[in-house]
C-alpha cells in the first residue's frame, strides 16, 4: 500500500483520477438519497392528510378521495409469505443437491439452468401465468387443496384462476433462483474440514449435510430467504397479471387480491388528483423503505458468514 501512496504523491494525475472516479462513486449515494427524497416529497400530501391511518384503513375510493393502503399491504405480505412457504423447501433442496449431493459434472449446468429462470422477464412469466399457470392452479392445484384442507378458511370459497394462490405460486417460481443460488453459495463456504470430520465418523452424505453443513450455514440460508422475501415484495408485473387485482381482504387464498406494487402499476397513470398520486407514491415509499430494510438485514446475515469464513481461510 505504501507504494501506491508514494506514487500518488509524486504524480498529481493520480489525485485527479481518484477524484474523478470518486465523484462517480458519490453518484451512487446521491442516487440513493434522491430516490428516497423524491418519494418522500411526492407523498407529503398523502402523509399529511391521512397520517398513520393510511396504513390501517381498508377504504380505497378514488372518487371520494379516501385512501387506505391496508388491502395492498395485506396482499403483498400474504402473497410473499405464501411464496416463501412454497419456495423455502425447494430452494434448500436445490442448494443441498447442487452443492453436496449432485454428481460433479451436473452441478454447473444445473445451477446455470436454474439461474436462467431469473433472466426471464417478469412480464413474460406473467403472460405464461395468465394462460398456463392460472388455469393449472384452478383445475389441478385448488381442488385437492379444498378437498383435503377445506376445513381451513384458507382453502374455502370459489376458486378463481386469478387469485392470491396463483400470485403466491408465481412469486415462488420467481424467487427460487435467488434463494437457491445464495443458499448454495453460503453452503459452499462451509469449511471442508467440517464435512470431512463427519464423513470420517462414518456419516452418510445426507447425514453429513444435516449434521455438519446445515447448522453451519443456517444464518446464511436465513439471509437468502429474507433476500427472496425482499424480491417477492417488490415484484410487480407477473403478480399484477395473475393476482386478480381486487382490493378486498379475504381469508381465502382462492379469492383475488391486490398488492402494493400492482396498485401502483395499474392506477398510477390514471390517477388524476394530487391526493391520489400522492397516496400511490406513499405506497411506493413504503415499498422502497421495507425492501431496503429487508435487503440490509439479508446482506448482513449473508456477509457475516462470508467474512468469518474468509478470515479463517486467509
Amino acid at each position, binding site marked *: 500500500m505504501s507504494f501506491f501512496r508514494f506514487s500518488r504523491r509524486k504524480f498529481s494525475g493520480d489525485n485527479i483520477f481518484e477524484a474523478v472516479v470518486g465523484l462517480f462513486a458519490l453518484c451512487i449515494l446521491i442516487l440513493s438519497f434522491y430516490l428516497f427524497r423524491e418519494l418522500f416529497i411526492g407523498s407529503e400530501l398523502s402523509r399529511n392528510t391521512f397520517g398513520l391511518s393510511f396504513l390501517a384503513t381498508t377504504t380505497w375510493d378514488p372518487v371520494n378521495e379516501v385512501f387506505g393502503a391496508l388491502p395492498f399491504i395485506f396482499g403483498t405480505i400474504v402473497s410473499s409469505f405464501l411464496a416463501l412457504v412454497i419456495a423455502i423447501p425447494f430452494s434448500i433442496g436445490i442448494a443441498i443437491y447442487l452443492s453436496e449431493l449432485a454428481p460433479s459434472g451436473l452441478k454447473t449446468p444445473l445451477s446455470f439452468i436454474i439461474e436462467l429462470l431469473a*433472466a426471464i422477464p417478469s412480464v413474460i412469466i406473467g403472460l405464461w401465468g395468465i394462460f398456463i399457470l392460472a388455469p393449472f392452479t384452478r383445475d389441478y392445484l385448488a381442488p385437492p387443496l379444498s378437498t383435503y384442507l377445506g376445513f381451513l378458511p384458507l382453502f374455502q370459497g370459489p376458486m378463481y384462476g386469478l387469485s392470491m394462490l396463483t400470485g403466491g405460486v408465481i412469486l415462488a417460481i420467481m424467487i427460487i433462483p435467488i434463494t437457491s443460488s445464495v443458499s448454495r453459495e453460503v453452503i459452499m463456504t462451509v469449511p471442508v474440514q467440517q464435512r470431512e470430520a463427519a464423513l470420517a465418523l462414518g456419516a452418510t452424505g445426507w447425514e453429513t449435510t444435516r449434521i455438519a453443513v446445515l447448522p453451519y450455514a443456517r444464518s446464511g440460508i436465513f439471509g437468502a430467504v429474507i433476500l427472496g422475501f425482499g424480491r417477492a415484495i417488490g415484484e410487480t408485473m407477473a403478480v399484477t397479471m395473475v393476482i386478480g387485482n381486487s382490493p378486498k381482504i379475504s381469508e381465502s387464498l382462492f379469492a383475488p387480491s391486490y398488492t402494493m406494487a400492482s396498485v401502483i*402499476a395499474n392506477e398510477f397513470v390514471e390517477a388524476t388528483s394530487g391526493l391520489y398520486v400522492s397516496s400511490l407514491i406513499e405506497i411506493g415509499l413504503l415499498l422502497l423503505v421495507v425492501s431496503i430494510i429487508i435487503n440490509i438485514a439479508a446482506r448482513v446475515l449473508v456477509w457475516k458468514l462470508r467474512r468469518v469464513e474468509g478470515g479463517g481461510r486467509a
Partner: protein
Amino acid sequence: MKWNKRKLVDRIMSFLAAACVIIAIIPLLSILYTVIINGLPAIDLDFITKLPRPVGEPGGGLGNAIEGTFIVVGIACLIGLPIGILAGIYLSEYGENKFGHFVSFMADVLTGTPSIVAGMFGYTLVVLYFKSFSAIAGGVALSVLMIPIVTRTTEESLKLVPSSIKEASLALGIPGWKTTLYIVLGTGKSAIITGALLAIARISGETAPLLFTSFGNMFWSGGIDKPISTLPVQIYTYAITPFPDWHAKAWAGALILIVMILILNIGVRFAARKKFG
C-alpha cells in the same frame, strides 16, 4: 454394503433434493415451450417491421416497440454504464476506506430496489419536470436498476486482477492512474463487459419502470422527449386485453424479447467461461 435404515434415508433425501431441482426446472421449460409454440406462428417480416394495427384489423406488427426498446435501453446505458463502471473502478482501486465501504454497501442495497419504485423515480424526476412521458424518463428509470449492478460487477471483476500485474506496472514507473486505466482495466476488461451485457439483458425485459415513464405509443418514435413504445410494455398491454389476436401478438413479442435476452445471457456466459476457464 449392507442395506440399512441410514443408507435408505440417505437415498431418500438425495432423491428428494434432486426432485426439487427437477420441479424447479419445469416452469422454465413450460415457459420456453409455450412462448415458442404460441409465438412462432405469429412472427413474420411484417411483425418486426410494421406498426401495430387497431384491434380487429389483421396484420401489423411491433416494429416500433422493438425500435423503442433499443432506444430506451440505449439511453439507460448512456447514463448507467459510465457511472457504474467508474464508480466500480473507485471501489476496487481506492475503496478501502469508510466512504468506499459505504458506497459498496449502498450499491448492494440498491440492487434490491423494487422496479416499480424506479419507475416512480423516473416519473417524479423527469416526467413531472418535462411535463410529458418520454424515452428519456424510461432510460433514467432503467438506469436506476442498472447502475448498482454494473458498479458491483465492475468492482468484483477488478478486484480479481492480480496485484502482481499492478506492481509490475508501477515498478516500471507508470503512474498509478495510468496503471489503473491501461493495465488493470485492460486485464479486467472482458469481465466488465460481461457484467455490463448481463445488466443490459436484465433491464431490457423490465416493464414496471416503463409503464409511466416511457409510457407507450402506437407509432414510430417521434424523438427521445416523446412517449415511446417498448416491447415489454407492449406485451403487457396486449396480454391483459380480451382479444385473441392481440394475445397472439403478445406471445410473438415475448418470443422476440426472450430470444434477445437469452442470446445475450447464454452467449455472454459461454464466452466468459471459455475465457476464464
